[in-house]
């Protein structure tokens, strides 16, 4: 009898002192974060070296060191240097930034909504941005000529950005009564906004010319093809303002998983956290869509993978999502531009092909357990 009890305790982890197990958990979190860092570095170097002009990983490192003034004995051609610095590197850096911002936004939104199926697309931020771009593409030279003239070459990014922010404000207003945001109302409002925006985009597609249709497709499926140092400069301040402070709300997001009133009883200013997270996500997603179009599924899949690896603690999941999201998007972009050379597949197709089946896998795994919704 005694033996069975101690065996039972062993199985439940009783024999191991709790503090040791706790340090094992911390140890695993650190290992996962370090591994994700390494993965990002490797994928970045491989992606930067792959394409019509081959650059070996060694040469990539050599060129980069050379750029910052450290001369090595690694030999490379001038042509390789130009391709890397002007074409490849901006694209990879853009992939890192957008991937990290999508994944971090997804994590924060899922935490806020206490719903592992939420993502920025769900509450209409992305589709609002896409509708604004579609309108400018199709009607920019006629009905909205004044807007086109005013915004000039950056008219599409700026209108996407404005569209995303406006949609977020609208949804926020719809679901906030007396300073209290109803999360369920917000999800439902998001569904309605998505439908309306979908109708609007459909209307634009219906009246678009062939060439405009191409532009709309590009925008709704996403691409890193417009990456340039100028675009990165445009994007960076928005991402920095909105994403860098998010880790500071990690503990608040953890308590929010218990429920809003529980978080409030633990001394969290719940409404402040909600407003902060929603505005951050709107800013970063709006800015992201403005430059790359809509890229789906990164924000949904990455937080899930992280939680499978390290559990739901946002203090680990938020930085981990940034690293994994960046790796995934750079990897997906590598596939998108090499799989059908010389043509380039829209990256949205690649991420959807990864994300869709994964989503189904989650549903099947949790079917009947009623865990996801």
């Amino acid at each position: 009898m005694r033996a069975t009890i101690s065996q039972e305790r062993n199985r439940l982890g009783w024999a191991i002192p709790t503090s040791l197990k706790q340090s094992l958990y911390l140890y695993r979190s650190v290992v996962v974060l370090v591994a994700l860092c390494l993965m990002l570095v490797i994928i970045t170097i491989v992606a930067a070296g792959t394409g019509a002009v081959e650059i070996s990983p060694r040469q990539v490192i050599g060129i980069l060191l050379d750029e910052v003034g450290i001369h090595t004995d690694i030999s490379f051609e001038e042509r390789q240097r130009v391709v890397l610095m002007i074409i490849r590197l901006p694209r990879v850096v853009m992939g890192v930034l957008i991937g990290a911002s999508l994944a971090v936004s997804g994590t924060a939104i899922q935490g806020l909504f206490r719903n592992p199926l939420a993502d920025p697309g769900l509450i209409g931020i992305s589709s609002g941005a896409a509708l604004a771009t579609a309108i400018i593409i199709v009607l920019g030279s006629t009905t909205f000529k004044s807007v086109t003239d005013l915004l000039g070459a950056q008219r599409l990014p700026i209108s996407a950005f404005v569209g995303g922010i406006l949609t977020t404000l609208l949804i926020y207003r719809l679901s906030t009564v007396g300073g209290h945001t109803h999360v369920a109302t917000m999800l439902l409002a998001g569904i309605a906004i998505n439908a309306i925006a979908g109708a609007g985009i459909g209307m634009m597609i219906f009246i678009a010319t062939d060439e405009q249709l191409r532009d709309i497709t590009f925008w709704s499926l996403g691409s890193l093809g417009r990456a340039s140092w100028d675009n990165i400069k445009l994007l960076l301040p928005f991402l920095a303002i909105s994403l860098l402070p998010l880790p500071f709300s990690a503990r608040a997001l953890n308590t929010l998983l218990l429920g809003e009133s529980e978080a409030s009883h633990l001394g969290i200013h719940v409404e402040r956290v909600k407003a902060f997270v929603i505005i951050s996500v709107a800013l970063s997603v709006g800015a992201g869509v403005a430059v790359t179009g809509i890229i789906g599924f990164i924000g949904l899949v990455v937080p899930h993978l992280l939680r499978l690896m390290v559990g739901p603690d946002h203090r680990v999941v938020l930085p981990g999502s940034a690293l994994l999201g960046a790796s995934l998007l750079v990897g997906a972009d590598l596939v998108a531009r090499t799989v059908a050379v010389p043509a380039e597949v829209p990256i949205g197709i690649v991420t959807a092909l990864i994300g869709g089946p994964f989503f189904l896998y989650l549903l099947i795994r949790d079917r009947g357990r009623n865990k996801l919704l």
Partner: protein
Amino acid sequence: MSIKATQITVHVGNAYILQDVSLCLNTGELLAVVGPNGAGKSTLLKVLTGELHPHKGTISIDDKPLARWPKKALAQRRAVLPQNSTLSFGFTALQVVLLGRTPHIRGIESRHDYEIVHEAMRLTATDHLAHRVYTTLSGGERQRIQLARVLAQIWGQDSNNTRYLLLDEPTNNLDIHHQHSILRIARHFANNGTGVLAILHDLNLAAQYADRILVLDKGMVATVGTPKVVLTPHLIQNTFKLTVVVQDHPCMDCPLVIPVTHVNSVQEKDFLKQHFQEAIS
């Protein structure tokens, strides 16, 4: 030192949910709130915690109006156990209890926080669940983990703060053994100076553990006082519409409420008969 509610009124349209409810929860006492379903018990708790603003009336904690308490300072003194928990993310039980230390933590959890968490889990007999994933636990285990969380929140024997514990039906989902062990813990906290308010359904649990019982009926305070004064057949008949006999507990100094169930009308007999037949077929 106390939580004081004065003439609280809450209404939805013309329907009054709470009407002129006043109560006082002193430190060091266990106050049980009982009443039939829909009497306004949960609404009263929401008003006491500040989640719901009453249409009339005031709440003060230690003679300072509730609205003037900084959130964090309040959370260090007062913990609230919710009726049901909605956590659907895979925290381990230990992490859930650790969340209770949130108002005390600056930066990262200290060794002291972990010690408190382990103590709270030992007290609620959940230490063997520490590394299980919360969502895989049974309803009763979850309830005890949540209790450990709120205990950890106001643990600090080392501080001079007043402490309050508000429990919304803490015995939900629990077997009779754990019902009693949870109220024993609540009693223990009250004996050590915490003001404990518990919404309860079982009148005998209230009788055995509470210093005072407040009976809420149709949004009004029917009566408040020691178990012996409050729990009379007359009052229980009036508020719960149930015939009972009340005796002295055979071995404890408190009343014992025994419901009298006998089928005494033709309609009731017919009703029961019909139900049995449906159950068989």
